[in-house]
């Protein structure tokens, strides 16, 4: 019998060894793929055993996201709390119990939960775990200026639109306001979506969850003339003094394309320079320039400013969208010049749609002598004890135009504010360069209005793009005053 017993013993041992192998498989091999499963209820709760890192202003005085401690059945859980409610809401994003996350809460989740691959963090997280100390995530510090942000959001009020401001020399995001905004604390409460859809604004649907600064496309109208002018000057085909005759319209494909305003009696400027054409936003001149440059040359210059790529930022990719021509909902680049109407493209029509961050990058690139800096909103990430995990160093994104071209454009844009369509953006004692934009929406009398600007023009510290939806006024009367207010606030910062 003993031989049989030995064999049975072997079988029994093999069975038990299989258990260790099986456990190893699930705890080591399959562990991360299981953790990522949407229905992983354990992870859904376990995330709250980690004290998520805070999201703060760069000075650490403004707190965008922190935690509420609560005991549930003897287990200490940390729930997210957003003390500043609607401020910077779409950029900060939310993190809910259902593990739906947006904004930086989503893209920086690894840092915020201390699971990023940075060596110091890995050591600390594992030591905490072994010692049974609550794992605490890294704190994230953001670049936006809290005061400027608040003023921008206030200026937008219940108007749908966005204000996006950058520091031209670094690419640092100074303001990222999207309107209407919403209280991030609603995200984890019942009926989140119905509640949010009740938010009132001058557009319908109000879509407060959409980050209009980076993830919404608007027709740029005349603000796009800056890109056309950059192409015209940088290619050497035109100078600011190039002379034009404006009959009030431009002939394209045998048809008249009229200047803005009343179609029955178009504005007529007669003989004028290229600079004056920008100052007064004369469509017929830009139409001619566009025809000569060709659509592809204009688009290629737009690419140098960042069009046709996702605008760089630390937020999730699906919360940013590329600017450019769109056809049937898809980004579209023509294979030859005849596919795109160059005249209309030159003054910002023709299927061209853009994001506010992209237009702010255009303004910042001109302000920074033709060099576009990579936009960033995360200043630094620190461990809970204050030691640095990572700090963003400004990086060049592209050289869009020559310094000389940038200088000429700078002067031309200054004339827009001193004596052209953008006088409402004048700041006493500060030279401001800007460009208005008013895009028709198809509904008569209802426009999308723009103002892009930078200041002080001789040594720019702020570049800004303001867009407003459903306006009856023009860029110079609606968006320019907001740009002025926000720039004033930002210039006051130390």
């Amino acid at each position: 019998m003993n031989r049989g017993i030995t064999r049975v013993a072997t079988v029994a041992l093999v069975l038990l060894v299989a258990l260790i192998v099986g456990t190893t498989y699930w705890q080591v091999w399959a562990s991360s793929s299981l953790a990522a499963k949407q229905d992983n209820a354990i992870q859904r709760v376990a995330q709250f055993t980690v004290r998520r890192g805070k999201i703060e202003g760069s000075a650490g005085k403004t707190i965008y996201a922190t935690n509420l401690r609560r005991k549930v059945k003897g287990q200490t859980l940390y729930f997210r709390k957003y003390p500043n409610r609607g401020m910077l809401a779409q950029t900060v994003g939310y993190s809910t119990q259902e593990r739906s996350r947006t904004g930086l809460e989503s893209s920086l989740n690894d840092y915020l939960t201390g699971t990023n691959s940075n060596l110091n963090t890995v050591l600390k997280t594992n030591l905490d775990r072994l010692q049974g100390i609550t794992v605490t995530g890294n704190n994230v510090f953001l670049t936006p200026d809290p005061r400027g942000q608040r003023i921008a959001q206030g200026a937008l009020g219940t108007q749908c639109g966005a204000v996006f401001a950058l520091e031209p020399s670094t690419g640092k995001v100074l303001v990222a306001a999207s309107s209407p905004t919403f209280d991030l604390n609603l995200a984890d409460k019942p009926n989140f979506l119905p509640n949010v859809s009740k938010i009132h604004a001058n557009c319908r649907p109000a879509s407060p969850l959409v980050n209009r600064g980076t993830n919404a496309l608007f027709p740029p109208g005349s603000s796009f003339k800056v890109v056309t002018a950059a192409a015209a000057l940088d290619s050497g085909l035109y100078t600011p003094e190039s002379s034009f005759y404006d009959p009030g319209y431009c002939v394209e494909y045998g048809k008249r394309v009229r200047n803005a305003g009343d179609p029955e009696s178009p504005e007529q400027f007669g003989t004028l320079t290229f600079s004056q054409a920008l100052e007064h936003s004369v469509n017929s001149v830009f139409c001619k320039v566009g025809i000569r440059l060709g659509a592809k040359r204009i688009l290629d210059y737009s690419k140098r400013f960042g069009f046709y790529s996702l605008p760089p930022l630390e937020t999730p990719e699906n919360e940013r969208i590329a600017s450019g021509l769109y056809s049937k909902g898809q980004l579209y680049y023509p294979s030859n010049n005849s596919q795109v109407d160059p005249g209309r493209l030159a003054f910002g029509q023709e299927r061209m749609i853009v994001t506010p961050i992209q237009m702010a990058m255009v303004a910042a690139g001109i302000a920074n002598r033709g060099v576009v800096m990579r936009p960033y909103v995360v200043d630094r990430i620190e461990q809970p004890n204050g030691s640095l995990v990572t700090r963003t160093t400004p990086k060049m994104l592209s050289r869009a135009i020559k310094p000389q071209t940038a200088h000429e454009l700078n002067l031309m844009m200054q004339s827009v504010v001193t004596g052209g369509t953008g006088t409402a953006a004048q700041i006493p004692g500060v030279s401001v360069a800007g460009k208005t934009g008013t895009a028709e929406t198809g509904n008569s009398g209802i426009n999308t209005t723009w103002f892009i600007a930078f200041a002080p023009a001789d040594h720019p510290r702020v570049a800004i793009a303001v867009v407003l939806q459903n306006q009856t006024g023009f860029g110079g009367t609606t968006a320019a005053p907001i740009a002025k207010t926000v720039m004033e606030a930002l210039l006051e910062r130390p």
Partner: protein
Amino acid sequence: MTLIGVGALTAVGFASVYIARQSVISAASLSYAGVFLGLYLLAHLVARATVPRADPYLLPIAGLLTAVGITEIYRLDPTDAFRQGLWVVIGVALFALTLFFLRGDYRRLENYRYLFGVGALFLLALPALPGIGATINGARLWVKLGPLQFQPGEIAKICLIIFLAGYLRQKREVLAQGRLKDFGPLLVIWGGAMLVLVETKDLGSALLFFGIFLVMLYVATSRLLFVGIGAGLFLAGAVVAYETVSRVRERVTIWLHPWTEQTVYCATNGRMELRQNCASYQLTKSLYSIANGGYTGTGPGKGTFSTTGGDALIPFLNTDFIYSALAQELGLIGVSALVLVFMLFVMRGFRISLLASDGFSKLLAVGLTFGFALQTFIIVGGILRIIPLTGITLPFVSYGGSSVVANFLMLALLMLVSNRANALRGIE
């Protein structure tokens, strides 16, 4: 014998560390450790008096496993831990009584083998009787007597092993020659047991009984052919069961495809759901629990088992699924150690069987030990998706009164066999 002391220390140390790790440290929780130590010493003293030459590993291992179980149960639900504690008291009492009454010669049991066989059948059939039977969690394997719930299957398992050991010892020669008529009583009792088990839908126990039966038959006759025939029968039975019993089919489907991309019909609420949210909810959540443990685990008391609202995430966590709770809190290192402890127990059990001098003792020890190993494999293997999941307890660790009592009876029998074997060999 020093091992016993070491075992006691380990067990108590384990318990107190665990309990102290709870966020609430109270005199009540520490008194658990005290009571536990007292019980353990009592069991040890009884064993010293009645079976002084028994294998010194068994009792400490059982104590350790019980301690691990009761502390994890305490962590999950202190009220359950109290009840479990009461059952351990009953278990230890029965352990002591068994040792005391059978200290002379446990082989007397062999004389009552048919009684045990019929008894096993009776116990198994009890839950099916109207009035006292109760269906819990889709299986009818409970007996309700007033406030007491009891699962007689666990005791029936031991009765059946005693019957098989006795009968096979007596008939092993003739059986080995394959005389069909000697298989009669065997098939009647065993077949009856299987019928009742399938009828009560207790598939885990059916598999366990079948495995024990085959192994004991093999050890008794040394005929691999019987195992082959048995395995063939089992496969045939499994196919038939798969085709005819919806519960079996469901278990296999859950096992093979716990996650679905598309919604499938959900029998519990009649709607279309993803399978991981319906039929395989328990299995997948348990796997998530295990995966969350990683190498080192979350630490005792730090695992996640309830929603942010405080509701339980995994049903039956402290009975069938206690392994996945332990895996999360102790991690791979912890539960691997736990499985090694099970292995050690199994190895000692087989050693006892090898050293035993007579057929009945050998068969009894093999049956009990292999049953212990197979039961561990069936439940943990089910949780780990090695085999289809069927509800059954993890010996000594799971919450459950009948299980605790049965395990202590098994322990007592193994120690009796071991004591006699060692006494005959003249060693301590």
